[in-house]
């Protein structure tokens, strides 16, 4: 039994499932629009939170927020369930899928057998859609892959109930009624407003453009504080957060730029196209950081490299982003 599900490959899992879900309910919504409406662009540096023993750095808003906020801002409602009982979780998934309802699941990537082995780490905030089942296998629209994939029930259960930080606990979401067509302008404004606020006005030093400066200051001291070996590991982790985890490139800044192009049409604000181009440039600037850092990861003997140079790039990005989000806020005020 499977729904006639249209699968579109996306850059990022959460915005990808949001987009694919709406599309399959006859509400066209690009991934970029979902990302921006959900207030996707962000920066947070949380050294007091460890992921794989390394400080958490994020270039996007909190896990789950994009799906939740996009749904809300577009006036739709999603049923969300979590389970203690794994068998019950599977029964309910089967029931929904058998009646033709596509279901968004939060899962770990570690236990998904179709993931490239090099990407199988204990990361628990992945999103995918189950749209059918055949025998012992589920048909899955995992947005970061080109085509739908299959996964055995046993493997999917493991992925749904992975333990550790941000454990999914079998979390599933689905529409109980068809989302209605809404005017996207208000949703776009709310998303932009949120991103601008969080990037420029948060009263804490580890978020937004202030957070980027704070991280840059730490980066400069890494060799001294952590030693060369650990500094290299921290650097690798940072590059992965910018480019490996399905960011669309440039630490999510390219996908945000694509969103602004669409926002320009929706809000009838040509100035947003110019800002989109600046965001693209900022994304390219972050990629310079990643490139410099990656050279260091590959070759420890690189004489031209210094953590101070790297920190400097980050400081430049921080300044640009601060100015950028202030300008963006003015466009929608």
């Amino acid at each position, binding site marked *: 039994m499977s729904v006639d599900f249209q699968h579109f*490959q*996306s*850059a990022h899992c959460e915005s990808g499932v949001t987009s694919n879900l709406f599309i399959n309910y006859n509400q066209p919504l690009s*991934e*970029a629009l979902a990302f921006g409406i959900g207030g996707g662009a962000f920066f947070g540096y949380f050294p007091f939170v460890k992921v*794989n023993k390394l400080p958490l750095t994020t270039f996007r808003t909190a896990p789950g927020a994009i799906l939740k906020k996009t749904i809300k801002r577009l006036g739709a409602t999603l049923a969300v369930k979590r389970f203690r009982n794994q068998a019950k979780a599977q029964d309910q998934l089967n029931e929904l899928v058998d009646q033709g309802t596509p279901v968004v699941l939060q899962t770990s990537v*570690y236990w998904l057998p179709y993931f*490239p*082995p*090099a*990407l199988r*780490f*204990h990361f628990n905030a992945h999103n995918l859609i189950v749209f059918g089942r055949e025998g012992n296998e589920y048909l899955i629209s995992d947005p*970061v*892959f*080109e085509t739908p994939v299959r996964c055995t029930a046993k493997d999917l259960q493991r992925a749904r109930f992975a*333990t*550790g930080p941000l454990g999914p606990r079998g979390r599933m979401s689905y529409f109980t009624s068809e989302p209605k067509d809404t005017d996207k302008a208000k949703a776009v404004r709310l998303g932009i407003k949120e991103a601008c606020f969080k990037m420029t006005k948060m009263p804490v030093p580890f978020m937004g453009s202030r957070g980027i400066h704070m991280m840059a200051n730490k980066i400069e001291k890494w060799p001294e504080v952590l030693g060369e070996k650990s500094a*290299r*590991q921290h*650097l*690798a*982790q940072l*590059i*992965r957060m910018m*480019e*490996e985890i*399905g960011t*669309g*490139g*440039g630490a999510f800044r*390219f*996908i945000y*730029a*694509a969103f602004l*192009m669409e926002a320009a049409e929706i809000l009838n604000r040509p100035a947003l196209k110019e800002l989109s*181009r600046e965001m*693209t440039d900022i*994304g*390219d600037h972050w*990629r310079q950081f*990643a*490139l410099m*850092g*990656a*050279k260091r*990861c*590959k070759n420890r003997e690189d004489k031209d490299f210094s953590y101070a140079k790297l920190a400097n790039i980050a400081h430049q990005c921080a300044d640009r982003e601060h100015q950028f989000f202030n300008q963006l806020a003015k466009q929608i005020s």
Partner: protein
Amino acid sequence: MKVKDVPQDTTFLGDVRAVSYAVTDEGKYSLTPSTGWSAVSQANDVAWEVINEDVEIALDSIAAGNHSPLAYHMAKHQMDVPLLASYAKLPKWRVKRHLKAKIYHKLSPAILARYAEVFNIAVSELDQLPSA
């Protein structure tokens, strides 16, 4: 990043292609398939170096008779004691005990089966370690 500049390097993605947002000549955004960027591969390699090192350390310790084979499987699966304990549904202090070579040899089949289940292997495979 322009569409023509989207890297198509040989990376850990193998035949899989991810998509990136890139700008066309007309100035529009396009989701562009990519086999990956070498910079990302290089960073990913460092993450795996750490894991492989942990595996080596575990194997050495097992060979020296200090730790049990569970230490190898734990490292291979990128777990630490708290994570393994949560998957095995055992208290951490017990998992720490089971990691000791002396204790491991006395473990019941039921406990061994639990660990084998976590690691997705048969109980008989628990003792099968790669040669160092």
